[in-house]
């Protein structure tokens, strides 16, 4: 190989390395994004199979507030307003907003609920207690921790408060059963206050308000121990 050809070959190889150095990270990012989209669409398909979205296009489109993680403040929720058709029936309305909440925000990092969880059923009791029954992944796929679990509960409660005024309290079931905790920390044996304006308390209401439980022991005084 004559020296002139060798020179051109080196220049060509150097150019290829430079081009690769510039485009490889972009290529990697694009592959990651498409993989994420594929996972999301699979989750969406699974959710739709489990629980088809109840949207009637003839229903009026109303401004709906959905609460996901705040992009600005760690550990806080932020309301996102969307226009969507919502039923006037409180049970159907609750299902519609919770399904949309579960579908997640545009930025997947701001999710508060696991992508593969689904709302199996929603009931509204005459006393204003809304009972939301979620599939198993609500407990098994949720990142474990006090902060993540409380944010999951708060995002459901605040979304119901903003859009379904008939719901006063929230009881969460996992696959039709009462669970002791959501993912090891937050108590699911009681109810959570939804209507914060009309409520006396701010969060978990004692378990026996909803279901009588056997007390493993009794304490003698509502004050400091002697």
């Amino acid at each position, binding site marked *: 190989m004559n020296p002139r050809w060798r020179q051109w070959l080196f220049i060509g190889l150097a150019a290829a390395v430079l081009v690769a150095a510039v485009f490889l990270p972009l290529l990697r990012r694009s592959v990651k994004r498409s993989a994420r989209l594929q996972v999301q669409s699979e989750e969406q398909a699974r959710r739709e199979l489990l629980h088809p979205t109840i949207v009637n296009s003839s229903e009026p489109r109303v401004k709906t507030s959905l609460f996901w993680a705040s992009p600005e403040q760690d550990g806080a929720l932020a309301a996102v307003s969307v226009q969507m058709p919502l039923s006037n029936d409180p049970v159907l309305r609750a299902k519609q907003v919770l399904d949309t909440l579960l579908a997640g925000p545009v930025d997947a990092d701001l999710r508060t609920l696991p992508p593969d969880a689904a709302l199996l059923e929603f009931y509204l009791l005459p006393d204003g207690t809304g009972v939301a029954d979620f599939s198993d992944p609500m407990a098994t796929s949720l990142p*474990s921790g006090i902060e993540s679990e409380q944010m999951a509960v708060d995002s459901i409660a605040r979304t119901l408060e903003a859009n379904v005024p008939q719901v006063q309290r929230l009881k969460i079931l996992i696959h039709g059963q009462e669970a002791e905790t959501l993912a090891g920390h937050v108590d699911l044996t009681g109810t959570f206050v939804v209507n914060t304006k009309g409520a006396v308390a701010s969060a978990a209401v004692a378990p026996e308000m909803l279901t009588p439980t056997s007390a493993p022991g*009794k304490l003698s005084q*509502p004050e400091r121990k002697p």
Partner: protein
Amino acid sequence: MLHGVRNAAVFPFLAGVLVLLTCDPDQVGVNLTGFLKPPSHQAPSATAPASQTPGASQSGVPVRPTLTPPARPTLSVVVLDPAHGGTDPGARGGAGLHESDVVVALASNLRAALEKEGFQVIFTRQGNDNPSFDDRSTLANAQSGAIFVSLHAGSTGLPGTVRVYTCPDAPGNLAAPGGLLPWNRAQAAFLTLSRKLADIAQGELAKQFKGSPNSAPTAAIRQLRSIAAPAIAVELSSVSVDDRSELDRMLPGVADAVARAIASFKPVYDSWPPGGGG
């Protein structure tokens, strides 16, 4: 014959019913609502004859003698609760970090810091066992002059931050007739003290770990609700770090800050009026 036997059985029964109806339940020592009575406070009768009451006025008006209340213990015991354990690893990080391991390491750092401050430390679990929520509460509720600190490491949150939680407000009047508290709502009576402790601890941690909140948040934590003492949960962020050494570096600082907070809280606890926990 059978008729006679039935009559013979009915008379003692009727007599028993009559006794119950005519007696003061306090004298019988039975509370018909099914709750155990709280320990008697020996409140003297206002109608006791003046001659039998030391210090009675000469006019014959009955005077209540003063009773010395039993001495209240000061804060001397800290019950440390490394959460999870055994088959329950708690939060799991990508690098194989388990919450149950991290909190044991934190507990041992905290024990050393608390013992330096002169507190007696009790663990709710030893090694890798996993007592139930109620077993842990039973151990804590058996202590006198104690507070409860549950230790956690979450899988979310800004790495290198720490949050201190208390239970949220409980609704209405929590005490059952006779001043009894249901076991599963015991924490409600101690919320004010728990919040004071949490705010002091969160303040100490926020100084040292930037990005941590300045005031303590609340969360409906299962473990805390049956604790009959001031109780907080401390959660580090997070087990999702790539390198465990990042978390390990935090532990001595968290332990020192929490121990300082508990030492600062001691005078508040010791001077708190009885019955003012909630």
